[in-house]
Every structure is written in C-alpha cells, then in structure tokens.
C-alpha cells in the first residue's frame, strides 16, 4: 500500500508542482530571452527584473472571467482544455529524472510507447476545442493543428524505432542504462534521429517555425481564440508541459539522461591508463538529477532561441517537410540502423 500508493502520490505531487512552477518560469524566461534577442528589456515591473511576473501571471488568469460563448458547446468547451492538459502531465510518470528509483515515478517496460501514445491523445483536446467553440478561426486552427500533429507524429514515431533498435528496450530507464553500457550517448550514435525528433518535437508542440495552428496574422489566437481565464490557462499549461516533455524525452533518449559526460573514457581506451584523467571522475559528485535538469534546460532554451530566430513556414511547406522529407529520412535511418546492427552482431 505504502509502496504502491503513498510514495507514488508524494512523487506525483512533487512532479506536478515542479511542472507547474517551471511552466510559469518558462514563460518568463521566454519573454526575457526573446526581449533580449530583440534588444528590449522584457518584463521589468513586477519584482526585481520582473522575476515575480511568473507568480502574478497565474493569479491574474485565475481571477479573470472565464467566457463561454453563446454558440459554443458548453460541456465540450470545458472538456477540451482538460483533455489536452491531462495527457501532457501524465507523460511525466515515466520520465526518469535521475538514476535512482527515487527520481522517477514508475518504470514501465513500454515507457517510450506510453509516451508516444499518451502525448498523441492531446490532439483530441485541440480538435475538440476548435469544434466546441463553434467559431471560424478556432475550427480552422484546430483542423490545421490536427493535420500537423498527426503528420509529424508519423515521422517522430518512425525515428524512434531506430532508437529502440539501438537500445533494445522500450523502457525509459532501460534506454538511459543502455547508453551507460555502450559508453556512447545515442545522440552520437544516432545524430540523424536526434535532429528528426527535435524537429518533430518543435512541430508537435506548435512552436515556431511550425506554429501554423496559432499563426496570429491569419487565425487571431489559433484554436484557443474563444478561450479565456482558467480554461485558456489550462491550454497554456499543456503547451508548455509538452515542451518540457519533448526536452525530457530528447535528453533521456539522446543525451544520456541523468548520466554525466565522459562516462566511459576508461572503456574506450582500456590500454591507455594515462588517459584515465579524461574520465573526469569528479563529475560524479554532481547528483544525477542535476545533470538531467541541466540538459533539459539546454533544450528548453534552444526552443526559445529558435523562436527568437526563425520565421514561420507556409502550410504547404510544413506538410512537405513532414511527409516528403522527414518520413523518407526516418525510414532510411531505420534500415541503416538495422543493417549496421545485424552486421555488428
């Protein structure tokens, strides 16, 4: 009972809090970084350098009036944000934040498949939001979003097959441990897969350059045009939680998860004892979860950096990249990985 319910509940509370707090500060960081990229100051009024903006924003959203348009489907309209937030949060139950069993909520043997399937439930929330709003912009945006999400999901899922081939397991913990055993982070073994998953991740989270579903100039606010107050906040949370998920998955699959850099110089050069200082054993002093969050932060920063740098694609370009570029590369990557793997056996 204690092992099965109480301890997981405690961990869930910690993870949920962590996600919510990091989302609010992500928003602040994003505003600040984009402001600096454009030679502005960004939020400066609330607290020192605008730090407290992260706290007052959610309070404002809670206090704001939550409008249900007269033409909207009342229950569906409320269900949509919940349906989009819940999967985005639940995915964190299999993300390994650290090497010890203390640092992940659970380790199921189909972890990666779980992540793929649960994140794709989020598309129901989006399409339901567009449909329930009964307004033109949200409907168009949700159709776009659905088409975009499912197109890029194929590419990402296919790419992940080659990662599973390399790791030989679907468990998230198992994949990181496989990187420890091989001595190489899979980002070096599967650089193509990393790039594909990262591009797919940008598209799956509707980020620039793939933010067509909420292209302000054409669709006002995207699928959540009609939303306000807390229901809008739930969509917002889901979007940023999804970004954190992508960063965590990329970290765990390709950049060694909680592992420190240079894990096995000894194993690479067994005969050269003199090189063992390259092992950098002192890095072991830094706890595993710090490595994980550090790497995750790098990717979250990359998301923001890309947003500050790139323009948006056209919709036909977006579809062409998804179907005609990413999928062939992903298929070729699977074949090459499988052939190399059999050759090495």
């Amino acid at each position, binding site marked *: 009972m204690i092992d099965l319910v109480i301890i997981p*509940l405690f961990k869930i509370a910690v993870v949920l809090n962590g996600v919510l707090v990091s989302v609010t500060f992500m928003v602040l960081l994003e505003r600040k970084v984009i402001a600096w990229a454009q030679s502005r100051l960004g939020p400066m009024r609330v607290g020192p350098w605008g730090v407290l903006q992260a706290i007052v924003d959610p309070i404002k959203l809670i206090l704001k009036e939550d409008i249900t348009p007269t033409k909207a489907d009342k229950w569906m309209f409320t269900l949509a944000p919940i349906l989009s937030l819940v999967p985005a949060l639940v995915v964190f139950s299999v993300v390994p934040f650290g090497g010890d069993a203390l640092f992940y909520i659970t380790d199921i043997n189909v972890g990666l498949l779980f992540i793929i399937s649960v994140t794709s439930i989020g598309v129901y929330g989006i399409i339901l939001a567009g449909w329930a709003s*009964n307004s033109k912009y949200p409907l168009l945006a949700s*159709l776009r979003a659905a088409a975009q999400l499912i197109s890029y999901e194929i590419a990402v899922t296919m790419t992940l097959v080659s990662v599973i081939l390399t790791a030989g397991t679907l468990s998230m913990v198992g994949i990181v441990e496989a990187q420890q055993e091989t001595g190489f982070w899979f980002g070096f073994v599967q650089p193509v897969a990393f790039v594909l998953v990262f591009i797919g991740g940008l598209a799956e989270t509707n980020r620039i350059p793939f933010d067509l579903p909420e292209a302000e100039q054409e669709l006002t606010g995207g699928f959540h045009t009609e939303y306000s107050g807390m229901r809008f906040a739930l969509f917002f949370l889901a979007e940023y939680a999804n970004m954190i998920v992508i960063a965590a998955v990329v970290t765990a699959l390709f950049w060694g998860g909680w592992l420190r850099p240079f894990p096995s110089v000894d194993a690479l050069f067994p005969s050269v004892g003199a090189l063992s200082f390259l092992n950098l054993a002192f890095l072991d002093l830094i706890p595993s979860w710090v490595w994980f969050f550090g790497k995750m932060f790098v990717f979250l920063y990359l998301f923001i950096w890309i947003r500050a740098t790139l323009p948006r694609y056209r919709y036909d370009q977006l579809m062409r990249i998804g179907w005609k570029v990413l999928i062939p590369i992903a298929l070729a990557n699977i074949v090459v990985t499988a052939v190399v793997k*059999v050759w090495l056996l």
Partner: protein
Amino acid sequence: MPDAYIPVMLFVLVAIGFAIFTLIISGLVQSSRYNKVKLEPYECGIEPDTDARGRYSVRYYLIAMLFVIFDVETVFMFPWAVIMDELALFGLIEMLVFLFILVLGYVYAWRKGALDWV
C-alpha cells in the same frame, strides 16, 4: 509488472483532479458581468451570420487516412525493434520485405499527389 501502472493511474486521477479543481477555484473567485457582444463568437467584431461548422478541405481527410495507415505500420516495427538482437538476419530480411511494401504504398501516395498540399 501491472503494479508499475498503478502510479500512472494515480497520476491520471491527480491530473484530472487538478484541472477540475483549478477550474472550480477560478469559477469561485472570478467576476462575471453579462454582455451580449462579449459572448458572441469572435469574428473581428463582425456579427457572424453563418454557422462556423461549414465544409472544409478534403485534404484533411486524406491526411487522416494516410496517418492511420502509416502509424499502424510503424507500431508494427516496435516489437521487432525490441527483439532485434534475437531475430538477427532473419528479422532484418523480414522487416526489409515489410518496409519494401510500406515504401511501395508511400511512393504510390506520393505519385498520386496525396502528399502535396496545394
């Protein structure tokens, strides 16, 4: 192993609970003032005279169908990828045959223009 899924179920309950809880809290503290125009569907200030749920491009259906085909085929590769160590050459050849058929369908869809958006 089923025990490993109990935390997942708990997380689902907690997440749903969190979403509903925040909606209720926010419903209790927010102010609400009726205004007919405010509650209209947003159309840049113009009163909408048609229903939003009209006809939309057939391409979305096409994308959805292609998705079903390709995604299911991808899921078939997952178990194969996990036990590739045991299958070795046999598994490789089997999967190459499977992928060949998949690519045939893909090339067909490409040639027919199903993957072009415009």
